[in-house]
């Protein structure tokens, strides 16, 4: 770290920095605070008094959303799809990454290159054939249709990150385990995976966030309201209550809570994973 040039009063030297940071912070925060407070207003107050605290705190917008079954159903759908996607992605990737990292065999580079090339396949390009494919297999309006597709597109990055980590674990450990009678799967399951816990956490967090925020795929796969995830529900809610701005704001805020809560818990893994993933990809 470079030391502050003036030792006398470091607070004064950082004051302009704080001023700029606060302006940027306001740019980020004001829309969210507007939504948060707006949710406590009624619509007439919202248009007359967008920024101030509500004259009377109207809680109906929030409680109505929380009392509606659809919000909770969407929350459940999003959670279910995110969790199953993550488990599937990480499990399949870990097995593949183990083979790529620890076995030498003919065709290894070919398959690995195939997966790394997968990083280059933009999801949007494949959406039409995927839709046709899922329709053929009767997987429309089935969570599995979204889960399998998300897992397939999550494989490349997850495999690359895990393979890198698996390779960094010394070969002596594997030799020792094999001498002690460990099968390859035993080594993978009992030794490698526990050692790779930080890497597993990182790729899991990435998979969860990717699934949670996915919009395009659920949009084409789910037509029935009972299958909707939160992003679809929000979009629909906006259409349904187009003139009821305060109620939409309340819905937005409630939908933000799980994502921001997760961010608060998993910040380190998320940021580390995204920047590492970005630079490796």
């Amino acid at each position: 770290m470079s030391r502050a040039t003036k030792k006398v009063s470091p607070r004064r030297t950082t004051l302009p920095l704080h001023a700029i940071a606060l302006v940027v912070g306001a740019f980020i925060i004001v829309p969210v605070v507007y939504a948060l407070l707006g949710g406590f207003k009624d619509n007439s107050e919202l248009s007359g008094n967008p920024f101030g605290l509500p004259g009377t705190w109207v809680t109906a917008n929030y409680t109505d959303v929380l009392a509606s079954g659809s919000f909770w159903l969407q929350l459940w759908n999003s959670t279910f799809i995110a969790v199953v996607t993550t488990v599937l992605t990480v499990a399949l990737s870990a097995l593949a990454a183990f083979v790529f990292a620890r076995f030498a065999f003919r065709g290894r580079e070919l398959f690995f290159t195939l997966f790394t090339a997968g990083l280059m396949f933009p999801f949007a390009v494949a959406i039409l054939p995927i839709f046709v494919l899922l329709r053929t297999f009767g997987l429309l309006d089935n969570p599995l249709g979204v889960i399998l597709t998300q897992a397939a597109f999550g494989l490349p990055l997850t495999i690359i990150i895990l393979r890198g980590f698996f390779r960094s674990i010394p070969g002596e450990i594997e030799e020792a385990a094999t001498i002690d009678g460990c099968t390859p799967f035993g080594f993978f399951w009992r030794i490698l995976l526990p050692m790779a816990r930080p890497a597993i956490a990182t790729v899991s967090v990435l998979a969860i966030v990717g699934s949670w925020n996915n919009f395009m795929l659920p949009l084409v796969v789910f037509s029935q309201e009972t299958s909707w995830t939160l992003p679809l529900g929000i979009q629909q809610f906006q259409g349904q209550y187009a003139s009821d701005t305060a109620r939409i704001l309340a819905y937005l805020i409630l939908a933000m809570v799980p994502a921001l809560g997760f961010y608060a818990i998993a910040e380190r893994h998320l940021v580390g994973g995204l920047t590492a993933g970005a630079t490796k990809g």
Partner: protein
Amino acid sequence: MTTLTKGPEAVRLPAPPPAARRRGRWVTITLFLLPAIVLFLMLVVAPMVVAAYSSLFRWNGFGGLPTDFIGLDNFTRLFSSEIFVQDMWHLVVLVALSIFVQLPFSLAVAMLLHQRMRGRAIYRMVFFAPYVLSEVITGVLFSLILSPGSGMANQVLSVFGWESEWLADPDTVLPSLFLVMTWKYFGFHMMIYLAGRQNIPDELVEAAQIDGATAWKTFRYVTLPLLGPTIRISVFLSVIYTIQLFDLVWILTGGGPSHASETMAVTMMDWGFKRSQVGYASAISVVMFVLSLVFALFYQRLVMRRDLEGATTSMGGRR
């Protein structure tokens, strides 16, 4: 590419016969690799191939594989379509805005937050937070804030006697869209830059300061060149992302008003799902793919080549 599995053969205590061992090895390799490969081939590779194939047909998406072969007609129709040509123009505009406005802004904020100052962890966390929110939340929130009548943005501007139609005016829709993109994504680029900056040894920066370089010159001739690889990656990600831009546009404007903010992905979804012209829509997806691929290859060949050689310290006075 070292192999790490030849150890056990050398020791071989309870060793099963070598043939059985070798067979066991192949069983392991196959069993472990197969699920991932099957899923990947079925849901990533095959759809890409089908997209390329069906772009040569007139096809409504029903009844097995397409049969009405029309060669490259979809592509000629595409490139003579005014909407698609506009899509490409929007791509150029958004990429230019990202590279010349959003990324320098992210870089400036990153340099700011690299300074030792109280609360910078909180600033960092707040600036990155929008990246975690879904495009849909962001889009709906800003469609309300930027609504042309009494949206929040106009109420702020009205204090200064200003007003804007934002997303409702073809002339302002792209800058408005870009504003929302910046809100959501600058924190991501900032984090990449921060990580890159942390990899630069502080001795280099201090040496420049001791030699009497001003803050600007230190940045311009020391920090910036050393950040080169990081910057080039964030430009790369920004371009690839913009080529596929869909969610935000779909929510904010649906491509309107009168196609003024439409992107390739929006046009594709429009033809593919609303008008059931899957062959034509596939042609759009092929163009998106080729564009991404060509860009990636050229960019990695020409711009990122020296980064891939891993030369962070051997940079002369370039850039």
